[in-house]
């Protein structure tokens, strides 16, 4: 086995004692994947967040398939506001930029500076660093390279990247 990146839906900086994870019921008909951004409906059950939804947002730390059940038959642990947690990006985001729900439900994209506060999921701080990648192109001489771009210094993320987001409190 080679090296594996940390999957979406992982708490990257633990804040035990300051903020705790919670467990919440999943809305009926919803199949939540680990790492999905979810929001709580007025009835208190979690569903995958889409761009039309307003926060507060949380991130699913485990999958929960309630497609065949009633509200709350399945529950999932979630990271709530204040956590540093990994989610999936749908496009380019610069470090320090605020994020909102992107075109794909449960994933995030860069928010404009004029974005409504209710749409903000959190702030993008960086991706996982210390990666070993082998190039598949002759232009890179099929080079096996090592990149350190976690915190020192973080770089822009691209679509499909698993990124670290500080969830808005």
């Amino acid at each position: 086995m080679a090296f594996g990146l940390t999957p979406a839906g992982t708490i990257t900086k633990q804040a035990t004692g300051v903020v705790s994870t919670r467990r919440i019921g999943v809305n009926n008909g919803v199949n939540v994947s680990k790492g999905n951004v979810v929001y709580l409906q007025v009835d208190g059950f979690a569903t995958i967040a889409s761009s039309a939804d307003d926060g507060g947002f949380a991130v699913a730390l485990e999958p929960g398939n309630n497609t065949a059940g009633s509200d709350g038959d399945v529950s999932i642990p979630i990271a709530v506001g204040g956590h540093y947690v990994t989610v999936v990006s749908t496009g380019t985001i610069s470090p320090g930029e605020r994020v909102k729900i992107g075109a794909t439900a449960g994933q995030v994209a860069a928010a404009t500076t004029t974005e409504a506060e209710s749409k903000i999921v959190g702030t993008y701080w960086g991706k996982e660093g210390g990666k070993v990648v082998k190039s598949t192109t002759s232009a890179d001489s099929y080079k096996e390279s090592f990149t350190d771009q976690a915190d020192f210094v973080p770089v822009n993320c691209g679509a499909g990247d698993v990124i670290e987001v500080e969830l808005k409190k």
Partner: protein
Amino acid sequence: MRSKIFEAEATPEHGYQIWRNPTDNILYGSYDVPKYGFTEAGAWPIYDVNQHLSNVKYAKEGKDLSGNAFVDQEFKNLVDEYRTNVRAGGRQKTAALRSQKNSAVNIVNVWTEVLGRLDRVYAGKNLAKEIAVPNLLIEIDTVTKFTGLTKLDEGMLPQNKELTYSRDSFRAEKYGLKFVIHEEARLVNVHNVQQDSIQVASNKVDQRASFDVISVLEAGLTTQAAGGLWEAFTSSTDHSTYSPFVDIGIAQLNIEGTGVGGKLDRLGTHQLTYVDYLGNTYVRGVASSSSVEYSFEPGTKALKGIEGIGLVNDNSITQGNAIATSVTQEPTCAYFQGPQRIGSAHDEETGDDKYFIIDYHKAAIIQPETGRLITGVNTPRAW
């Protein structure tokens, strides 16, 4: 498994009790309590403790056993079956056999060896000289040599010359790796997560060191274009078009040449680049009847063809490049190894354990004159 049976009531399933007769030291089975004697109780001998002890003594002395301690064959069969079960199932089956409530424990066989923990050899670090740094800062002094002797006339004084020193400062940089083992992972996992994590993490310092050294050398060394591709053959002939020895020779002359006192003693290449080197007829000979011996394992070995030069093969060296450095004299590149810390923190509340490695190091070119990056030596291949 060592066990001693002195006096034990048989379980109800057996239907009889086991008593030791103090007069002959034999265990008897009986359905009644032998209040007045073993004969009256209808007891029958099942295990000879004296024989057991003498067998143990003989076994310790390495002698043949003098006899069988089992007097009752049925009891012996029971013991044999129990031993077979325990040996076949290990601790889990033992637990099941002894369990009052759950004797149908599902036994899952998991190979104790965990796959995927091992990493490759990171040899790139061997292109640099490792220098221990007790704290973070180190100064490297370089001297500029004065020129040579001049011819003097009678009574003439020579010109004064003096050495010029310059100093470069280097500061080791901080790197860290932290991993967390949740209490649940520790409690439910059949493997030792902590040990596995530490084993995986142990390679990371070498990995980072190797990549850092190669990265610094490929970015900072004076380049020297190869005179030709090492793998190219002269059309319709049996010989290579160009000798790699020329490229290495030029690099060696530069490193050990005019006014520089280094020694080309390490050559770093990708494994596939080295394949082209060995396949070159100037190295292997034109009429060679056997193939050269080759290993694709990364590591450090002797460079075939030129005595005194060590070869460093590492996957992360760019194909097409050959890194020529001096390590023993006037080292080209230094790997400053600062302090290392390994520690752990236990969260009493969640039960989680966090482990971390903090490593201070820096790879830097300290004597650029004694190294060359030979470029364009072969055509990169996909791998």
